[in-house]
């Protein structure tokens, strides 16, 4: 074991000795196991994220300890820095006195995109304030120095809370013995500040975390932050501006937003006023800010403060604005050599590593408050991202603040759930559609696969079935696809073929990720495993087993959706998506079968029944005799058959009515449309009794119902997305 005496700072040595006495090093291995277990149960540590190497940090078991003497110096310096940065920000976007004085290189400043000119006071914008930022420090031989300011989009804020809550659980008595300063009062003030700084719309205050989405590295901690504060996490496309007011596109109505925690880049945020266009843009946003109809913790343009052109000038600017020297000296982060060796415990081993501190500062009115904690980030390059420690400020505990973190969480309080954003409703509907589309395609492919084995010389016949699938499911066909194997591979494993089984399964994965906060962990995990056999490729020998396994996984997802999803709007849209897809697919397959140039033989009818998993239902009623009229009626109008079109439409009507009864006014119109579709279904012509009778009228009627369903989806999308 590395001796703790090797730690350079005498004060830290003392703290570490005390820590080791309280939290015996023999218990550290079990502490690490408990911590890993606790992390895996939090939303930001889902197993699939680590599988995909998305998690860019790994938490250390041991905290970074700092005593109050060191902390007071840091706090003093950080507060001064925050006051200074606020002066600089107001000046850059106001009078520009520091530019006139020649402290800042003008061409360089004006060449930076982070100097957002639409935020300048001359455009009618109120002078911006630096409400929230963080600073990175490191311990030099002469004390702490500043390495970097991060002002634009704060990072790892959620990790601070996540790490601390876990440590509160595991090291409660050690924390008490070391007089750990609590974070809760600061967070409480932070939240109050958001509310008090925000304008109110009709006595209503509503805030969101604006994220770049699940594909972005920071989403993990942002989602955690959202859960902690109880704010919805949204993306730019969820928001819309009307009359200089920012709204969340919610299901059925537009929800005014009064404050935004911005976690998207500032460049191109409003393409109407900014030069760039970004995928996170919200047209009209600058107008909302100009009219002070929304509060943003990080106004577009604050990112300029983290640029070298400002950082380098801060010592002079401190003299200019505050008439004093910087309390915390700043150094060039790249050339700084850190020797702050701190004990770590990872993978059952103790070692020393060098760390920098990440401290968070917020302006509560004119009062700059440093969070009494934060993170320590390893400065040693590590292929799994930096090792992160919880920062413990120890000493002088205010007894009134004992365990206030628990108060913040409101564990026993009822929190109203938010109405779902329109984009989530849309994504859930598509999630359902892709599940059902994959299920259907998987079944047909499995039936086609086993066909040649049943009948001698049936390969050619089977090829026609593959072509029929392609037409019915509107899967594009390449001229180069000639043989059975070509078609088979294209329909199953080709990711580039739109509508192939693999592309549909990928769409399920994508939508599940997008909905990760709305579906259960098991649903998410199974969704992420769906494409695994496809990425490695498989032979025809393996195909049947893989298709069966895929069907079982899909069945597990749908089963879990019933058992583990809250039966509210998200679930309703999943149901509508599945029903809609099943109805459309059934109609399309029937229509294409009817239109096929050849006579439909018994074999094709049986294939159809097996595809829709209805062969046993059919045989119970009609035994083994193949009666096309009976099959057709069973698949279209039989409202007791859960695979029939009318069953799907009926179920969608019930779902819409249920939502309408729960107050969703918008649901009345879709329900009306579905009733019309049900009427059309009831008027569907019967299957011809003689072979001489033409089938075209039947095909036409099926097509008309299919068109009605397509229109239903289009209208529903417009309603949902407020178009």
């Amino acid at each position: 074991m590395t001796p703790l005496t090797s730690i350079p700072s005498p004060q830290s040595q003392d703290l570490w000795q005390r820590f080791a006495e309280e939290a015996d090093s023999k218990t550290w291995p079990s502490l690490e196991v408990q911590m890993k277990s606790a992390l895996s149960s939090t939303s930001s540590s889902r197993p699939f994220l680590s599988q995909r190497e998305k998690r860019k940090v790994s938490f250390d078991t041991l905290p970074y300890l700092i005593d109050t003497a060191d902390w007071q110096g840091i706090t003093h310096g950080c507060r001064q820095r925050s006051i200074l940065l606020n002066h600089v920000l107001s000046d850059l976007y106001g009078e520009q006195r520091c530019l006139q004085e020649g402290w800042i290189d003008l061409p360089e400043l004006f060449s930076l995109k982070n100097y957002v000119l639409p935020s300048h006071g001359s455009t009618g914008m109120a002078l911006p304030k630096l409400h929230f930022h963080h600073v990175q420090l490191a311990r030099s031989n002469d004390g702490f120095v500043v390495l970097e300011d991060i002002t634009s989009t704060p990072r790892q804020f959620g990790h601070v809370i996540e790490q601390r809550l876990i440590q509160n659980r595991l090291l409660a008595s050690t924390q008490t013995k070391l007089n750990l300063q609590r974070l809760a009062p600061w967070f409480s003030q932070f939240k109050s500040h958001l509310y008090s700084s925000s304008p109110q719309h009709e006595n209503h205050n509503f805030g969101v975390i604006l994220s770049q989405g699940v594909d972005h590295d920071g989403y993990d901690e942002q989602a955690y932050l959202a859960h902690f504060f109880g704010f919805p996490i949204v993306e730019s496309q969820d928001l819309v501006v009307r009359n200089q007011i920012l709204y969340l596109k919610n299901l059925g109505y537009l929800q005014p937003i009064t404050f935004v925690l911005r976690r998207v880049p500032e460049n191109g945020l409003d393409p109407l006023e900014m030069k760039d266009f970004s995928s996170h843009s919200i047209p009209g946003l600058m107008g909302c800010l100009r009219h002070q109809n929304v509060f943003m913790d990080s106004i577009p343009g604050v990112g300029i403060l983290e640029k070298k052109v400002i950082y380098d000038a801060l010592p002079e600017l401190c003299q200019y604005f505050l008439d004093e020297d910087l309390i915390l000296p700043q150094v060039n982060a790249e050339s700084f050599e850190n020797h702050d060796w701190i004990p770590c415990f990872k993978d059952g081993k103790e070692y020393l590593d060098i760390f920098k501190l990440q401290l968070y500062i917020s302006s509560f009115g004119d009062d700059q408050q440093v969070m009494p904690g934060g993170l320590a980030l390893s400065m040693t390059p590590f292929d799994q991202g930096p090792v992160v420690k919880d920062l413990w400020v120890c000493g002088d505990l205010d007894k009134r603040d004992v365990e206030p973190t628990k108060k913040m969480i409101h564990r026993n309080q009822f929190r109203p759930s938010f109405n779902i954003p329109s984009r989530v409703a849309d994504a859930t509907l598509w999630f359902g559609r892709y599940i059902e589309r994959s299920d259907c395609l998987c079944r047909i492919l499995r039936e086609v696969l086993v066909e040649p084995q049943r009948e001698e010389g049936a390969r050619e016949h089977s090829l026609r079935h593959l072509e029929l699938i392609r037409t019915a499911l509107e899967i594009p066909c390449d001229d180069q696809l000639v043989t059975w194997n070509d078609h088979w591979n294209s329909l199953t494993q080709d990711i580039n073929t739109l509508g192939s089984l693999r592309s549909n399964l990928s769409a399920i994965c994508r939508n599940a990720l997008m909905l990760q906060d709305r579906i259960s962990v098991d649903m998410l995990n199974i969704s992420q495993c769906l494409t695994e056999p496809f990425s490695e490729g498989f032979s025809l020998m393996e195909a049947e087993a893989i298709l069966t396994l895929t069907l079982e996984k899909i069945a597990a997802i749908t089963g879990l959706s019933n058992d583990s999803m809250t039966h509210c709007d998200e679930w309703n849209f999943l149901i509508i998506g599945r029903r809609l897809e099943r109805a459309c697919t059934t109609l399309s397959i029937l229509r294409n079968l009817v239109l096929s140039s050849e006579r439909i033989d018994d074999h094709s009818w049986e294939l159809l029944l097996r595809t829709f998993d209805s062969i046993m239902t059919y045989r119970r009623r009609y035994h083994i005799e193949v009666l096309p009229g009976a099959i057709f009626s069973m698949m279209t109008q039989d409202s007791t058959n859960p695979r029939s079109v009318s069953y799907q439409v009926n179920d969608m009507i019930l779902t819409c009515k249920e939502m309408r009864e729960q107050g969703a006014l918008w649901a009345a119109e879709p329900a009306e449309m579905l009733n019309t579709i049900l009427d059309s279904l009831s008027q569907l012509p019967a299957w011809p009794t003689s072979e001489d009778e033409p089938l075209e009228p039947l095909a036409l009627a099926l097509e008309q119902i299919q068109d009605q369903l397509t229109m239903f989806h289009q209208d529903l999308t417009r309603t949902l997305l407020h178009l």
Partner: protein
Amino acid sequence: MSSSRILKIIHRTRYEYVAPVLESQNAGHFLPAIFQDQVLLEQKVSIIPEPVEISTHKNYFGNLITLFRCDQPHIIFEAVSELKIEKRPILEFTSGPTVKEAMDIFKNKAETLPKVCWAYLPNTVATLHIHELHKEFEAIFFQHTDYITACKALMHHVFINFEFDGSVSDVNTPLQQIFTQRKGVCQDFSHILLSAFRSMGIPTQYISGYIETLPPAGKEKLIGVDASHAWVSVFVPHCGWLDLDPTNDIGISSQHVSIARGRDYHDVTPLKGSFVGDGQHQLSVSVDVREFVPAQTMSSQAQVAQPMMPPSPIRPAQFSSEQ
């Protein structure tokens, strides 16, 4: 020096979409910013479909930005801007600094320049610093002692060495390509000149506006044949801004109407925005600039300016969420 004259401008921008646009949010530079040599007498902006929201504010460059939102589904969008502007005589600088004096200010005392100059100091993506371009123009510039003469020499250099060709570029053509092919239109020539000036540290504005063209002798002027135009305005220490039109090798004349100033074209896009719908569309732009002649007054213009290709407005598409 010519006397005051009144110009009437009609600028029509029309989009025809293949599929209906459900909603659009737009920003337009319809109204002129304040320029010393012109006074706005009348203004009218008509937009089809009628916007449900419309507002105008001044941006950092002093330009008037009209923001508007249309929420009626439409397949035709049309914005017509009608302006009546009095053009006043342009006061030419009688004397200016030497090249040495001016460059000393730009290089060593940029902070003493008026604040409005600062944003125009650095190169931008559209007015990129290109080493060969810089060397070529710098050599010409420093052949002169008088600063204004040196600036005009650079304008003349563009006029002589770059060919007007409306078929070789669009608003997104990289400057390096324009510099290599030595062909382009007014905005390309302006970007070349801006790059040359800014690479030397001289603050220079991109000006967008209109230019009045005159029909060939004996022919009547057709409606809508004029064009949007672009030129540059270079800062002259102790004097002000000097407009240079590299496309026509002239300073600003009574035929030029300024609308907006910026660092490059992308700061002064005539119309941009986002819409919900299919992106396919056809764009047509027509500009008509003609003298407003009160009773008993006749136009007496002699110079014939070169007609320009209008810069195409950009309207980035924003699609619905259909998957």
